[in-house]
């Protein structure tokens, strides 16, 4: 179903027209038109139920998805109303006509739950009440670290503290740096709020008690600081909003609420569920939730799949009305029959996954698109380098050389659309798109498959788009710009190659190494005798800053460090012109702007000592070191669109809700041996950190017992199944799995959920009974190898 002109199928129609007095749970498979159904049901509330749009709330998971919903409401709703009003007067009653004339489609309350909470709280404040400030992740983590005094707690307890936190790191290793510790504490404190953890129970008797008390103290100090300064992180925002709607003072905007529609409900956390159900109870609004338990990906952010699975029971208890209806959407309008059969088989593969799914079981997804003659493909090679070479060659043939001709393996040619086809029609999905492995024991970081692929694509005149592939600190343009900033604020000399101020500061070794690399880049550039731009000499700019920071010579007493950043842009041309580089520039300038909210010197450089040196230290510690320590995330949403001539690499999480004609899923480019450190990504032998955290907090939270009937290890397997289910259900025309050959060997020891291994260690890609003598490759592959 692609728009209002196509008639909804029977399942969709049932969902759109279902009674409003009974809560509706719509379980919607991939490509089944769930957003369309949600939007049409919202429009039905207006056009049939005569509810003004301002009394209807529609939430979804991301800002982008919210925009899409809003777009559809406008593009479909307005013509329908215009058409209805254009009818002869006799066809509409005067009352209904007056109602339609008063309808403004723009006034639906759409957004993410957080954005709506923020907007409503801001609108509702009293005369002398400050506008609450909602802080972004970076600033929030810095405040947690400082105001929570994580370092002091760590110093006080030493290994006891780090050992406790190591339970919740990806690899199980203790966190080494303050940044690493903060990341772990962040997940804990968010959980405290989202899972409504009883802190007294959390610090009850048991293992790691001193460390748990330390975390509780950090949490208390952090919350106190936020409350005193009227700031909120997203979890606190939700908690404050909950308190507000459960008090007598329901926000004015919600007083007349008549309908609530929630998209992506499978990724709801317990506090969000409470908000929705409290709102529904207080307003008696009609409730419709849409989602797919098989596509829940955000356990690590508190998503609790059980809330979706048990919605019928939980909503009935909370709302006290009729038993909610459960409806299924299983007709797939996206993918070819071969692809649908493949992901259906995948999600049914492991019998141990069945109890984790919704009951009664969702029927298999049904294909509606025609066959295109292309089976699900696989490309497996000895090494990641070879795989990158051959995959780049494949893409080149398809998109640049008129197409891949038919052959024995695939009897159909594959080519891009002759008129408008380009690399933007394809995507590589992977659980991680990092271009380098983490550096280990002082060794330089080793390149991964995405690096090899980027190089091979470039060799063939094709470009990749992978803004999350490299840490910001490793991007050449970032290195140059920040190297120039370092040279400007703490100049190096022959005898002081790391500057004068920085060597005396406590920064991580990783940051120190990054600073050296940045300075090297800046010195190379300076030695290249850069040309004047707009009549401005590069040396003059650098000298001016050095005179301020080294000698205290300047007319003004203080300078924002962003002035230093921007003054060097004339010599980093890609920051001026390249859309992809804007993503990096935004991230590093955001680091400076956000530091102004928590840093002692507010991202300023002061002219006079002793503040001059301290302000330089402030900039290094609060603006530059976070970039060097990889604490700043890029936000590619600032780009309206990715240029069509670039090949996209994205994580499976990013691809949620998207579709592409050609989807290549990296299932095994990293796996050439059965290395223990990689197992958590393919076939865990111990529970994931987040599942352990759920278990550890279970006794202290009302939601705990809902999660623990399945073991932490079972839940860890579930997460991997859902991850690859999402990736396998993204393509429209072609799905291709790629990886290294050892994963496919008949006698492989590399167990991998993505290649259909079950938690019970069965592998359906081998025939049963086993063949003797065993073949080299698995002999029951559901993919056609290239």
């Amino acid at each position, binding site marked *: 179903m692609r728009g209002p002109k196509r008639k909804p199928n029977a399942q969709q129609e049932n969902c759109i027209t279902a009674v409003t007095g009974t809560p509706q749970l719509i379980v919607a498979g991939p490509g089944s038109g769930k957003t369309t159904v949600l939007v049409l049901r919202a429009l039905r509330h207006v056009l049939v139920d005569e509810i003004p749009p301002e009394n209807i709330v529609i939430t979804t998971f991301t800002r982008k998805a919210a925009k899409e919903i809003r777009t559809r409401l406008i593009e479909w709703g307005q013509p329908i109303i215009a058409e209805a009003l254009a009818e002869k007067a006799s066809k509409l009653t005067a009352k209904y006509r007056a109602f339609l004339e008063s309808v403004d489609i723009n006034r639906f309350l759409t957004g993410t739950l957080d954005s709506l909470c923020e907007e409503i709280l801001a609108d509702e404040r009293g005369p002398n009440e400050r506008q609450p400030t909602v802080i972004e992740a970076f600033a929030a983590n810095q405040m947690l670290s400082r105001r929570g005094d994580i370092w002091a707690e760590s110093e006080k307890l030493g290994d006891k503290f780090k050992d406790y936190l190591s339970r919740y790191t990806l690899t199980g290793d203790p966190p080494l740096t303050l940044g690493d510790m903060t990341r772990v504490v962040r997940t804990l404190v968010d959980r405290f709020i989202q899972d409504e953890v009883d802190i007294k129970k959390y610090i009850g008797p048991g293992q790691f008690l001193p460390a748990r008390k330390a975390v509780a103290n950090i949490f208390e100090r952090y919350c106190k600081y936020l409350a005193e300064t009227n700031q909120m992180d997203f979890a606190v925002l939700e908690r404050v909003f909950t308190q507000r709607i459960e008090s007598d003072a329901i926000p004015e905007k919600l007083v007349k609420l008549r309908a609530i529609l929630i998209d992506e409900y499978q990724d709801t956390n317990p506090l969000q569920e409470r908000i929705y159900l409290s709102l529904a109870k207080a307003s008696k609004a009609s409730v419709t939730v849409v989602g797919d338990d098989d596509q829940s990906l955000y356990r690590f952010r508190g998503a609790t799949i059980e809330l979706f699975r048990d919605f019928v029971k939980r909503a009935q208890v909370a709302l006290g009305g009729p038993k909610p209806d459960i409806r299924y959407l299983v007709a797939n309008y996206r993918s070819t029959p071969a692809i649908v059969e493949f992901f259906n088989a995948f999600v049914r593969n492991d019998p141990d996954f069945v109890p984790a799914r919704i009951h009664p079981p969702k029927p298999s997804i049904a294909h509606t698109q025609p066959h295109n003659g292309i089976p699900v493909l696989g490309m497996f090679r000895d090494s990641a380098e070879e795989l990158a070479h051959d995959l780049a060659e494949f893409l080149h043939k398809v998109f640049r050389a008129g197409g891949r001709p038919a052959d024995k393996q695939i009897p159909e040619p594959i080519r891009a659309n002759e008129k408008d086809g380009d690399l933007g*029609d394809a995507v590589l999905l992977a659980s991680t798109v990092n271009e380098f492995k983490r550096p280990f024991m002082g060794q330089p970081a080793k390149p991964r498959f995405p690096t090899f692929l980027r190089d091979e694509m470039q060799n063939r005149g094709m470009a990749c788009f992978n803004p999350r592939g490299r840490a910001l600190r490793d991007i050449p343009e970032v290195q140059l710009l920040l190297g120039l900033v370092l040279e400007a604020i703490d100049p190096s000399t022959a005898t002081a190659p790391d500057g004068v101020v920085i060597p005396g500061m406590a920064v991580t070794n990783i940051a120190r190494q990054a600073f050296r690399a940045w300075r090297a880049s800046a010195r190379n550039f300076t030695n290249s005798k850069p040309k004047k731009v707009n009549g401005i000499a590069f040396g003059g700019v650098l000298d001016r800053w050095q005179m301020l920071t080294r000698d205290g010579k300047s007319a003004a007493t203080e300078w924002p460090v962003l002035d230093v950043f921007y003054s060097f842009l004339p010599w980093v041309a890609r920051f001026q012109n390249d859309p992809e580089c804007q993503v990096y520039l935004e991230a590093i300038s955001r680091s400076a702007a956000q530091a102004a909210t928590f840093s002692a010197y507010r991202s300023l450089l002061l002219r006079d000592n002793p503040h001059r040196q301290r302000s330089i230290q402030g900039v290094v510690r609060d603006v530059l070191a976070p970039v060097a320590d990889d604490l700043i995330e890029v936000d590619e949403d600032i780009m309206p669109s990715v240029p069509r001539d670039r090949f996209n690499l994205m994580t499976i999480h990013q691809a949620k809700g998207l579709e592409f004609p050609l989807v290549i899923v990296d299932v095994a480019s990293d796996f050439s041996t059965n290395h223990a450190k990689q197992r958590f990504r393919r076939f865990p032998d111990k529970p994931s950190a987040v599942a352990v955290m759920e278990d550890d907090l279970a006794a202290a939270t009302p939601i705990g017992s809902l999660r623990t009937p399945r073991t932490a290890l079972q839940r860890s397997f579930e997460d991997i199944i859902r991850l690859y289910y999402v990736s396998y259900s993204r393509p429209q025309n072609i799905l291709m799995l790629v990886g290294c050959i050892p994963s496919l060997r008949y006698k492989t020891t590399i167990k991998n959920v993505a290649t259909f291994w079950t938690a019970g260690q069965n592998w359906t890609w081998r025939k049963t009974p086993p063949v003797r003598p065993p073949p080299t490759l698995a002999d029951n592959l559901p993919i056609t190898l290239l």
Partner: protein
Amino acid sequence: MELSVKRPDRIVPEYSLTGDLLSYERCALQYRYYNGSALPPSRPVQMWYGEFIHGMLEAAFRLWQQLKGVQPFPWPFTPIPEAGPPEPPPANLPAHDIRVLGWPIEVALMHGGKRARSRRARESAYRRAEAAVNLLGPHLFPLISDAEQKVIGTRAIPALGKGLKSRSDHYALHGVIDVLTHVELAKAPAGNIIRDTVQAAFPKLEGTFEVIVDYKGSHRPSVTLPNGKPNPHWDLGAWQIQTYAWLRQRQPQAFPVAAGILIYVNELAPSGSDAQRLNAEIAKGRTDVVPVKGDDNYYALRAWTPGTRPKLTEEFRFTRALRVIRVNTETVVQATGAFDKIVSDIERCVVTEAANGSIGATWMPSCIEEETCAACDFRFFCPSQLAAKAADASEPSAADDDI
């Protein structure tokens, strides 16, 4: 088998009247970096001042409403200390003291990374806020029916031309109307400066109607530029009111909008640099409100010396501060059409950049004011001549402390 083409994202772009359209009109290239790339300005000085003034007037109105007129104007203003960093006001001050009203606004701005550039700038902002509250409050507050009203509407995007296809057929336009007055305006007593100003401009105005009021944290713009050409910002202010009127009419239970008032807050408490600017504009005949030759204001301006503030009468300051805009169907159609064209220009750039992958080849610098270039973070590589002039300074630009 031919691969499909990936369906382009279908998004109705959203534009804010002030945040996007007026910014784009200031300079297209600057708009691309600040709005498109979300790059933070190194010195959000003007942003701080504008938000501070709006926040003060809103907070003062809400308190006045709560106090039900118990505290007569003028409200007290305890000056900010002459030394030390910004600090909370003393605990014993009453809730309607300008310092007490201002502090939470300053704190919220600080948390957003916005602060006054200097003590002088902060003092100046408080001085202007005090004038705005005490001069405007008695006349304006009793007429207000709603404050900070969010408005939104959808409009068609005009064709982009050159065979370009826009991202959507429509765009959503939103804004915040500072103040709405309606029938209360007609009931206001004679001597109410707002009522008198509207009536003087439109003596035949009758019936139930609304007047839109928009605060501007700036001086009254000149009608023409130094080169003699019309000042586009003069028209933009009027268009903004007309477009708010259109947006307002999209709301349920809205009365017809008959007029708008732009209030240039700086004119209520002019500074030395305002006097200098005004003298220059009067000399070149570039401004529409001038003192009568020989009256007190004439001499106050002619005899003004740098380093002092001009002693202008309250009446003259009000006349400079208030600009009444007539609103009717024709003017609304003209103004909204002008903004549609701006949206179409922006969309053309967005689509063109997606195809050619170059910002510099797509978004041209279009700034006409030196002061905009002087405060622009991208002046060092901007190809425009004005920017080159601003970038030529030996020190990076410092915005005017006096605001």
